């Protein structure tokens, strides 16, 4: 099972994503932004970071990288793609996923251990979770506020395409709000087919005992191995 991890200039968590694929039992394959070739991989991870510094808008410039020219049609054809944080932003800018990510409502970067609820276990990246399961993974972003117009939001809800939601609880230090101002507490979404998933929090930081707050990130990567076998 070969899973590609794309490196853009400014990618930061490509190394972690590679490790997570390996820990889950897959074979990581390094993909380069300037190389318009997926090298026959079975799935792709777009990792976190600040591609091109994210100076214009997060993911806006990475979207035009040569590797995206081959990734976008492949994703439309059913290739499993996971976008984490900056990767999620790239997927939105590429219109593979709806909506956009804007500056956190409190305008600060935030790094914390965050509880999410898994809302959809029918995707290529979530099948090893239980419906409604609560997981704790790392959240770290400056521009993680998920926004879209009302119609799109209603459509996402109606079609069950909200994949993850921030669990908002009293006493978690956020005053009853989600960590970045995302509309309807949306942390991650999927496309209709369920092969493309994007989320702001970072499962790849939660796969090894002793590092990170949990092992709750592992099922993302084991799910895709199963889904590729079953495909």
């Amino acid at each position, binding site marked *: 099972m070969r899973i590609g991890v794309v490196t853009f*200039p*400014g990618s*930061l*968590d490509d*190394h*972690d994503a590679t*490790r997570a694929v390996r820990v889950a039992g897959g074979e990581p394959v390094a993909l380069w932004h300037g190389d318009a070739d997926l090298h026959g991989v079975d799935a792709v991870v777009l990792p*976190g*970071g*600040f591609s*091109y*510094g*994210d*100076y214009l808008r997060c993911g806006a410039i990475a979207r035009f990288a040569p590797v995206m020219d081959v990734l976008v049609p492949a994703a439309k054809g059913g290739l499993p793609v996971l976008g984490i944080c900056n990767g999620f932003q790239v997927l939105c800018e590429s219109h593979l996923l709806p909506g956009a990510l804007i500056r956190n409502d409190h305008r*600060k*970067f*935030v*790094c*914390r251990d965050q509880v999410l609820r898994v809302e959809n276990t029918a995707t290529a990246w979530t099948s090893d979770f239980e419906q409604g399961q609560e997981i704790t993974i*790392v959240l*770290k972003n*400056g521009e993680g506020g998920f926004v879209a117009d009302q119609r799109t939001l209603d459509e996402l809800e109606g079609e069950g395409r909200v994949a993850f939601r921030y669990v908002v609880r009293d006493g978690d*230090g956020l005053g009853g709000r989600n960590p970045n101002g995302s509309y309807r507490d949306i942390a991650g979404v999927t496309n209709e087919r369920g092969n493309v998933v994007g989320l702001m929090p*970072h499962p*790849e*930081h939660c*796969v*090894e*005992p*002793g*590092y*990170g707050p949990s092992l709750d990130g592992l099922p993302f990567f084991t799910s895709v191995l199963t889904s590729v076998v079953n495909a």
Partner: protein
Amino acid sequence: MSTLETSHSKPALDTVSAASGTPEVEQPWAELGLKPDEYQRIRDILGRRPTSSELAMYSVMWSEHCSYKSSKVHLRQFGDKTTDAMREKLLVGIGENAGVVDIGDGWAVTFKVESHNHPSYVEPYQGAATGVGGIVRDIMSMGARPLAVMDPLRFGALDHPDTHRVLPGVVAGVGGYGNCLGLPNIGGEVVFDSCYQGNPLVNALCVGAMRVEDIHLAKASGVGNKVVLFGAKTGGDGIGGVSVLASETFDEGGPTKRPAVQVGDPFAEKVLIECCLDLYAAHVVDGIQDLGGAGLSCATSELASNGDGGMRVHLDLVPLRDASLRPEEILMSESQERMMAVVEPGKLEEFLAITRRWDVEATVIGEVTEGDRLEVLWHDEVIVDVPPRSVAHDGPVYERPLARPAYLDGLQAAGPQDLPRPGTGDELRDTLIRLIGSPNLCDKSWVTDQYDRYVRGNTALAMPDDAGVVRVDEESGRGVAISTDCNGKFAKLDPYAGAQLALAEAYRNVATAGATPLAITDCLNFGSPEDPGVMWQFAEAVRGLADGCQQLGIPVTGGNVSFYNQTGDVAIHPTPVVGVLGVMDDVARRTPSGWKTPGQVIYLLGT
């Protein structure tokens, strides 16, 4: 920019031959901060008056900040009091960009703490950001991959309006730059005291690792080897002070505005890190130096001084962001995200292929020459011809007068015995609440949550623990623990003991995390060295630290001195920030602070 042609046609270029023929020309050495005897010494070294470019180089390299002229005589103790046993794990000691220690299994670790205090007061965000950027390049230039950063910070009173300008900017700058570089922030300090009101302290530490055989040094050797400048273009950043020179050479109107602040581009630095690591892996780098304070003046003179030949640099080949820059200004520019490498001609093609892959601009601007001179040319005219050692290493050394401050007796006599004590339960409760609610003791997550502590997935401990712990070797789990500490109030009461207390605290924090302490870095933040009282504090603190290191048996491997942290006559508390680094076989076995499960037994150790 259309200014290029005009600047060339200006007749005012001050060449070596012009300088030889015009010994009587008045030069603005005093405005550049040189003392009369220092200027005379430059004339003696050169046997003529310096050119304006040479004057610029000497003035900045002989500044307190670059030459350590007031601190050198004291810092020597760090070497003198280091025994052979303490040196056992030391691969590179004081004198290089950063010290390097052997942590076993063929791994070497380098770490260092530096200050960026004054720039962070002027422009908090960019000052702090470029402070992080600078220390990370220091670590990169040793051949290492940077692993993590830390940020010991000191601010004025929390409720002072200016703190509301400085603190959010500094924290956002440290985070903005470090987060974008993909370096976990694994610790630091946030301390409030009104003594830092006009002089906040922004210290930044970086730790990096490499295989022992991959250590790189800042030296230019091998006649015919190429000198390559790579990374960002050179702009007019941080050359405010040198404008007096430029204005001498401009006929009308003076130079265009030169910014006093540098703006960081963390994306450019991230790309530079990856590019450098690819260059090291391909073995195409013979010597390397980062460009920080004093820019090209520092990089060229240090590389040449540490090497075994001379160096010739064609300054007009330096890629510019602002074409109106004069040669003096190009030599001085503190533009960020630049590096200088020495490359064998046969490896140049491969070197350039790697920089192209990362979209990093690289330009051959000179070569290593026979002989022992550093020559800088501007369109084929020689504008600098100096012995590089005289610029980089043989600057002035001062034994400044010391005097124990008179106020100390009173301060030390006023012990806690005279303080009111809580008498009732209510008073005790009130005291406790005030303590735990005070900005110096309260939870710091409002700061640290703005820093990425997880990136690269090797962080085994970070805030709120007393030491940061990161894995170096992913196979074995071998890694390092680091803590930085200092209590400026203790150091004010007794700088000798205060420095030792800082050392002891950092040492304990590393040890209790489960690591064996190996090495020390320090950032000595003080007032003006021209004040004998401050100089006495400094001397005492260094003596205390050196003695403490000897007792603990671990060496100081590098650090930084920041003087002139004072407003008018009032200096900050002496603040010798000490960083201790320890090693662990497997960082997954580290000990967090704080109990985990009910039923655990609590022991109190020590006296």
